[in-house]
């Protein structure tokens, strides 16, 4: 009888849960449709059009899930959760994937390779990313981390052209395997002592806190390793430069941002479930203070990212290190885990998404039009593509955080959030993070402007004039640039909206 009731409750709750995954079903449907079209019609245009439509459609469906209450929905007995905050993360990811597919459909190199997978895998990748943002159980976390990694490997492999670049794919896989092994080991340790894998289990913290301190430290450290890998934060950032260098800039539009956003969503959720304020109180162990821990990670990430970026000669390696430094900035939103911190994080993710997408679109544009891969290839580019060069200046200025661009507003919010966290806790590590971030901003000026200097102030070393295909700049990049300026000057509406639905 008891079993029957349990089963029944399972079924009814599952019946409820299914409908929250509607966007994912639609993505699955479009993936199958894409597979079908590729098999029987071989029509690239139709395929890409459908994929763009499908992803946008799932975006609309996700948007409709925004509910009036801020309560967290438990799905599948707490395996997944859904809240407005998570929906915002999902919308950001959907936006990236959508922009990526639109841009990729114009990339001739992909057309020539005849790889339809490149397009119909995108919905599947999006499902994986969505699952990652919704995970609330160590098992689903592990599964979705693996799923995201698999598709990332796939995309790297699809855009590799020659054998020398295969090294980067291999490195990615090896590092990824290491990170997931560490994650899995951390999870099993945690399971062994907490007796449950569900982060929402009321007994989870109490039991887990009874474990010996070194074990707690080890298991959380190992789990963190897996997370840090996803957001490309130090000391698990090593794969990023190699992978970036070997992968086409078009693919990087997707790979540089989408997993990162999902990683931050996961990180934010995880910290939320851990309710680390309480955790700090139970353990009362200064070394395992989350604020200090995250601050230290942020500091290392900022320092490594920005200072190593200075010495790069390849544009994508430089962007990889710059991306690592940006990860450090984003971590500032999680320190203290205040409500303003989460808003700052979400807003900066939006800003980062726009800037990064625009940057890689332009880098890909320069790759396609002028075969520019190294910083030296950027010399005198303004003579050949004035519009694209000027757009890149705006993007980089925004990355550095110059007003009145969105990067400045985002950094301003992150600094404010960290300042609040510092005032609340008086933890000197946070103050050091803030100062490091300020210095990293100054350093970022230097490496971004190496590129700008090459483009604007030096003469071209080689002469090869391709006929410029400018429509992509007007239709895709220019709107992003306008968004950078618009959200920089008038951020109120979007922030108020996010604020209104998540808190």
């Amino acid at each position: 009888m008891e079993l029957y009731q349990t089963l029944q409750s399972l079924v009814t709750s599952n019946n409820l849960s299914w409908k929250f995954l509607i966007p994912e079903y639609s993505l699955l449907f479009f993936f199958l449709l894409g597979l079908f079209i590729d098999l029987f019609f071989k029509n690239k245009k139709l395929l890409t059009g459908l994929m763009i439509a499908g992803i946008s459609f799932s975006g609309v469906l996700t948007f409709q899930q925004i509910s009036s209450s801020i309560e967290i929905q438990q799905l599948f007995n707490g395996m997944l959760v859904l809240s407005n905050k998570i929906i915002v993360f999902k919308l950001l990811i959907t936006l990236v994937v959508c922009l990526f597919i639109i841009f990729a459909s114009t990339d001739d190199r992909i057309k020539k390779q005849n790889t339809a997978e490149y397009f119909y895998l995108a919905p599947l990748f999006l499902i994986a990313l969505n699952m990652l943002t919704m995970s609330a159980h160590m098992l689903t976390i592990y599964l979705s981390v693996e799923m995201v990694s698999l598709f990332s490997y796939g995309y790297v492999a699809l855009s590799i052209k020659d054998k020398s670049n295969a090294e980067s794919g291999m490195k990615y896989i090896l590092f990824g395997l290491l990170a997931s092994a560490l994650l899995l080991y951390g999870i099993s340790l945690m399971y062994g002592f907490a007796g449950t894998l569900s982060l929402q289990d009321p007994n989870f913290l109490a039991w887990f806190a009874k474990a010996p301190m070194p074990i707690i430290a080890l298991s959380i450290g190992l789990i963190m390793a897996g997370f840090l890998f996803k957001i490309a934060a130090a000391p698990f950032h090593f794969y990023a430069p190699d992978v970036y260098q070997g992968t086409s800039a078009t693919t990087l539009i997707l790979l540089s941002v989408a997993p990162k956003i999902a990683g931050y969503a996961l990180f934010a959720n995880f910290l939320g479930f851990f309710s680390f304020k309480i955790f700090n109180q139970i353990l009362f162990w200064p070394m395992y203070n989350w604020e200090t821990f995250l601050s230290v990670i942020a500091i290392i990430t900022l320092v490594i990212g920005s200072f190593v970026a200075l010495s790069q000669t390849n544009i994508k390696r430089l962007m990889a290190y710059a991306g690592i430094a940006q990860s450090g900035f984003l971590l500032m939103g999680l320190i203290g885990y205040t409500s303003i911190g989460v808003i700052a994080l979400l807003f900066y993710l939006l800003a980062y998404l726009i800037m990064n997408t625009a940057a890689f679109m332009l880098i890909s544009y320069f790759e396609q039009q002028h075969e520019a891969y190294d910083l030296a290839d950027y010399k005198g580019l303004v003579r050949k593509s004035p519009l694209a060069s000027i757009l890149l200046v705006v993007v980089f200025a925004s990355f550095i955080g110059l007003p009145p661009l969105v990067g400045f507003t985002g950094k301003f919010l992150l600094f404010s959030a960290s300042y609040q966290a510092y005032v609340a806790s008086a933890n000197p590590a946070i103050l050091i993070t803030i100062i490091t971030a300020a210095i990293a901003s100054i350093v970022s000026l230097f490496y971004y402007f190496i590129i700008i200097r090459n483009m604007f102030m030096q003469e071209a070393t080689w002469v090869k004039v391709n006929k410029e295909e400018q429509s992509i700049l007007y239709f895709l990049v220019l709107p992003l640039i306008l968004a950078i300026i618009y959200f920089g000057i008038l951020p109120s509406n979007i922030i108020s909206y996010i604020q209104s639905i998540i808190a």
Partner: protein
Amino acid sequence: MNNWLSVLIFLPIAAALILLLLPKRASNVFRPVTIVISLLQTLIVTYLYTQYLKNPQGYHFVERADWINLNLGTFGRLNIDYFLAVDGLSIGLLLLSAFVMFIAAIASNEIKKDPKAYYTLFLLLSAAIMGVFCALDFFLFYVFYELMLLPMYFLIGMWGGPNREYASIKFFLYTLFGSIFMLLVMIGLYFSVIDPVTGEHTFNMLYMMDAANYTKDSYFSIFSTDALLFNYPVRFLGFIVLFIAFAIKIPTIPLHTWLPDAHVEAPTPVSIILAGVLLKIGGYGIIRICYGIFPEAAIYFSYWIGLIGVVSILYGAFIALASTDLKRMIAYSSISHMGFVILGIASLTSEGVNGAIFQMISHGVLSTMLFYLVGVIYLRVQDREIAAFRGLAQPMPRYTLFVVIAFFASLGLPGLSGFIGEAFTLIGAFKSASVNALLPRGFAILASVGILIGAAYFLWTLQRMFFGAPRFKGAQEWHLKLKDLTATEYLVLIPLALITILLGIFPSILFDASNNTINAWVHETWIHGIANLKSMQSLLKF
């Protein structure tokens, strides 16, 4: 119409957008449009100036609107206002800026490469400069302050001399270094200050200046009992950070090294803007923001600030004496002259601060003239080594006349504008010992030595370059090239020379506008500073 200041800011932005849309072929339109826009700005500011003189106190032409207004839940609201106004401190500098931009636009006839990009950036820079002097919301001020960097970087970097890449990034890095840390202090202040009307945090500078608006236990409150960072009062650190940011801009020793590089590499009109306007933002920032918000720290550190001023005066003068490049010499003389500004401010006397503002405006006009004069010969022979010229007075007598006016005004000849500024700052510095005991008398004496060295390098340069029998490095070829002034050059130089003489004879033109504001400012800074200092010393026991 009551939004003249917005017009002033957005007129050049609108013009820049129009220029962007024009085709590249229309290259002969860009300069006239820019000249007309900057002339319009100058006329508007002149009108505002005359209006201001009718009732020269308090804030005029106030514009205030909500800009960014966010509800951050438990953290209250994020309020950023679009808040513009001018007072006696800024109206004179605003007038100077508009005028210098106008002169720079005329002087831009030497720019032949990419006129579209040049004039678009020029107009953008103009908008940012106007904004800096009008903004009374710290956030807004910061936005305009940073907005100047990118256009300036490209103006130096794309149209500059052989070493322009180095000079432009150095300028950018130095300024950004100061301003990023300024941002941190700004955030700290924001979370400490409460708008007394709405009870929300605010970026309003005027509220930041009143100690009563700080929440009691915030880091920047004077009533806080634990606002120490590394065992040092947080307010003092805030002052130091802001002071460094503006000291880089002025620039003072030892943060000055970007300036000579930037000047030597920049094309003439950009040098004019740099010396004529951008350096003044440093002085303005110190008076308005550093001293305004942290009066007690200003009093506490006044000795050191005065010392920095004196060292800048002497160091700048000595290096100018040793310079072999005429433009570099003038760049260092700028550092020396801006040292007087710092000294005047540090004295915290009415004479000193009025003199500092006068000196800024006078130096703005004079450095515009000096850099333009250097540009005149550089344009003819692409050389500006002092040793390369001798007896210039013979082929270019009229040019020499203007050089003599500019040099004599700069070295402080009575009857010309430079004298008034330096004299007043010195009087202030001298008087300080007896009025408020902030600066020792020795500072004023050392600063007068600076004037003496100034006279030495200006007169020596005059003698070396202009007098004697003509002998040029380029021999006969240069004799042909070194023609006397053209019509455009007269158009630039005559008004500048007239203003120098006018200000020298009737300094009240400027003092009438600044005097009331500055007297009140000195009084309040002193009263509040002493009160705050006492309170902090008793609470923090440092």
